[in-house]
Structures are given as C-alpha cells and as structure tokens.
C-alpha cells in the first residue's frame, strides 16, 4: 500500500477562472493535492471540474491566483504529467502500437527503446493481441485501454483524467477502475480524476472533492479511508456503501441547496 507524503504535488492558491467577460467558471479555489494521492472531482455540470484539470495542465491560464505543480508553473511541469481525455482521442491513422508510442515519439525517444516500452505497456493493459490493429477495429473499452497505455508511456508522476470511462458500459467501467488501481500500485503516480459517478469516485480515491456550480467552488472534501489494495469485492462491503451514500448526500446538497 502506498501512503501519501506531505509534499504537495499540486497547489491552488485563490485560483479563479472566467472566460472573457462572462461569469466566473471557478472562484477562489484553494486546493492542495499531495504526492501519491488519488483525488476525484465530482459535481454537477458547469461546476468547472474539467477546467480544474485544464488549469493543472496549463492548457488554459487562471484569471487570478497561482497554480504550482511540483513547485513549478503548470507549463514547465507538463512533461511530468499525462492527460487522459473523455473519449480515447487516438489518431485513427495510426495502429495501436504507434498510438501508444506517440508521446515518446514526440519527445524524441529512439525507436528501439520506444518499441520495448510500448510492447510491455500493451501487455500490461491487455492489448498485446491487437498491437497492429487500427482504432476503428477496437471496442470502446479497448480504445480506452490504449489511451491509458499512451498516457503511462512517458512515465508520468501525475495523471489527469477527464471522465475517461463515462462512455463505457458499467461492467467495462468497473473492470477498468480495478485495473487503474493495480497500475497505480505498481507505478506510484498521483491522480486527479473527474467523474459524474459517486461510486467510481469513492472506489478509486483517497479524497473526493465535491464542487458546487455558479461559480464553481469547493463545497466539501470527503476523505475515503478505505485500505488499498481495493478489489471488486470492496463494492459489496458496507463501509464502501456507507461512504457512497455519504458522498451522494453531500452532492445532493449542492444540487438542491
């Protein structure tokens, strides 16, 4: 089991974000995420969950406040992060192998080392059999596995995930959740995970951050003190169900104040 250290990996100090002259998407966010944590962001549509991820990745600048990742600006810390998007966002003209190797290729890793790394990752996510297939030949779950493998290829210390399993059926989603935790136990990255599903957030996280909308702000933080490793069986135990019920209750406060 991995313990979160006291070193902050991500630090938001009074961060606000508004697009143009419009209403604020996020207002006065203070948030500290420690190395080794798995933090889920949950909340109704329009509460700025995805914007938090984009701010961490430096894909959009904050309107006010400061963001530090690994003690650096988001842009400078980018090479320590990987982003997993809601749809698998694979390049359709590349095979699975070439898609998974994309990040390494863009960072000029020589092809031999790249090939070894990609092959071992494909085995890890169970795509060894379809290494030469094109994305259109894969199921939704397989595409997402390829997307996860691509994100892990650059050995990230921080993994940002924007509702990665939202489009998958429940069984596939549960299985990928379990695999994600297995990979995390081996590779020790910090994770920030956006989702709509309370059960998914509780199952994966060490902390669940509940956001409220208009403007987006932190409503509550629910710690999840369930031990790792977590397996499928956890979903049936009363502590898990209690935490899901508790988090759902907090979320309902946000939806109907």
């Amino acid at each position, binding site marked *: 089991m991995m313990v979160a250290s006291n070193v902050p990996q991500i630090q938001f100090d009074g961060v606000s974000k508004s697009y143009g002259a419009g209403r604020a998407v996020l207002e006065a966010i203070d948030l500290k995420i420690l190395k080794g944590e798995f933090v889920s962001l949950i909340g109704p549509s329009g509460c700025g969950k995805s914007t938090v991820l*984009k701010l961490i*990745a430096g*894909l959009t600048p904050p309107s006010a406040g400061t963001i530090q990742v690994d003690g650096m600006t988001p842009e400078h810390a*980018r*090479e320590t*992060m*990987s*982003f997993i*998007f*809601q*749809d698998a*966002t694979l*390049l*359709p*003209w*590349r095979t699975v192998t070439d898609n998974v190797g*994309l*990040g390494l*290729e*863009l*960072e000029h890793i020589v092809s031999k080392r790249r090939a070894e790394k990609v092959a071992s990752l494909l085995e890890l996510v169970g795509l060894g059999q379809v290494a030469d297939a*094109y*994305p*259109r030949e894969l199921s939704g779950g397989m595409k997402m596995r390829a997307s996860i493998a691509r994100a892990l290829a*650059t050995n990230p210390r921080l993994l940002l995930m924007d509702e990665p399993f939202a489009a998958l059926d429940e069984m596939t989603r549960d299985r990928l959740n379990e695999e994600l935790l297995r990979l995390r136990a081996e590779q020790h990255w910090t994770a920030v995970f956006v989702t709509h599903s309370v059960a998914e957030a509780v199952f994966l996280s060490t902390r669940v951050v509940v956001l409220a909308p208009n403007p987006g702000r932190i409503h509550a933080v629910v710690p999840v003190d369930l031990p790792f490793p977590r397996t499928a069986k956890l979903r049936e135990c009363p502590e898990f169900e209690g935490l899901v019920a508790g988090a759902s209750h907090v979320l309902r406060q946000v939806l109907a104040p």
Partner: protein
Amino acid sequence: MRQRLITVANALAVFLALLVVWQLILWVFHVPRYMLPSPWAVARAVGERFPSLLTSTAITAEESLGGLLASIVVGVIAALIFAQSRWVRKMLYPYTILLQTVPIVAIAPLILMWVGAGIGAVALIAFIISLAPIIANTTQGLISVDENLVHLFLMHNASSAQKLFKLRLPHAVPSLFVGIRIASGISVIGAITGELYAGSSQVGVGGLGYSILYASSQLQTDYLFALVLAATVLGFSFFFVVMFWEWYFLHRWHESVRTPETE
C-alpha cells in the same frame, strides 16, 4: 461474386436497351444521318479513326492531368497558408469563391491571349478550374482537428512541425481526396473548354475539344459522337484512378472507404 455479375448484367441490359431505343428513333422518325448517326456508325467511326481518336484523347489527358497535378500542389500549399489563422482565411476567402464562380468559358479566351495558345495554356485553364475544390476541402481538413487531440500534442510540448506533420496533415488527407475527386472531373471539362478556343497548329489534329469543334464544322456527326464518348471515358478513368489511390491510402483506417457490406 454472383451479386457482382448480376450488377454488371443489369448495367449491360440498360445499355443494350438504350441502343435499341436509339436505333428505333432513327427508323421511326427518319432522322437524317448528319443529325443523329446510328450506333453502328458511331462504332465504325471509333474503329476507323481510332489512331486520331487516341491522339486527341492523349493530348486532352496530358493537359488535364498537368492542370490537376499542379492544382493539387498549389492547392495544398494554399490550404497550409489558409490554415495558419482565421484572419488569413477571412482575408482570402472571397477570392476562392471568385475562383469557384468565375465562368471558365468567359476567361478562357483571355488566358489564351495572355499565355499564347498551346498545351500550356489549356493546362492552365484546367488548373484554374480545379484549384478551388482542392483549397476548400484541404483547408477544412487542416482546421477541423479535434480540440483534445491538439491538447494531447500540447501536453507533450510538440513543435509546430510535429503538429503539422503528425496531426494536421494526416487528418486532412481524407478531405484532400474529396477535393481531388471533384477536381479530377472538372479538370477534364476545363481542358476541353480551353481547347474549344485554343485551335491547333496542325489542321485536324488537336485535343478532344478542338476535334469536337472540327468534326461538327465538317458535319462528321458519327465521329463527333465518338469524341464525346472518348471524353466521357477519359473523365471516368480519372475518377477511377483517384478512387483507387483514395482506397489505397485510406482503407485501413478511414470509415468513408470501408468496403461496403454486400446486401
């Protein structure tokens, strides 16, 4: 396989029926030969004058192919410039519309006057008429890349060259082929239009457009039909060559060229 044979047989049946109707019209209405030759006369004209038919077709093919290839090169370069910014697009867009709407029949004589009649001038006309669909479609392909893919490249600090060659250009290939498919058909029309005005340095010998004009002035209606037939075959073969390359480059990954399932 059997399905395919039936499709071919159906197409052949329609063709034969057309020939029969054609012949019946000649018999029933006593149409004079110089107005409408019999199918048989057309076939004989094709046979007897095959070498000159072939020469004319080759000249037109050369001109339209030259114009088409040039329009692909120039069109892709123009699209790359257009894709740079919304501002550039807004500034230049009216001119691509102009390129598309200018009646080629009206400017062909001008171009011939400026450049001097010849294969080059006709190829230039084919080039002008083919350019707009290549630019429009390629630009669309270059700028319609999914935002998350752009973000993905940003996350890896990709250079502009990497973004262009590994993301935007491959993404634009299917749209480029849509443009080439449209341009391939109209490049032949452009060349023939140009030839109608260009004349020929050698009396009776020239591209299809010139020969069509010559044959009609001589009332050689059977040969005129043979020339129209040749022009159609030429347009078709351009289309099929483009289709083949499109299939060759895209069939492994792109949905649009997925082999259709047999009914």
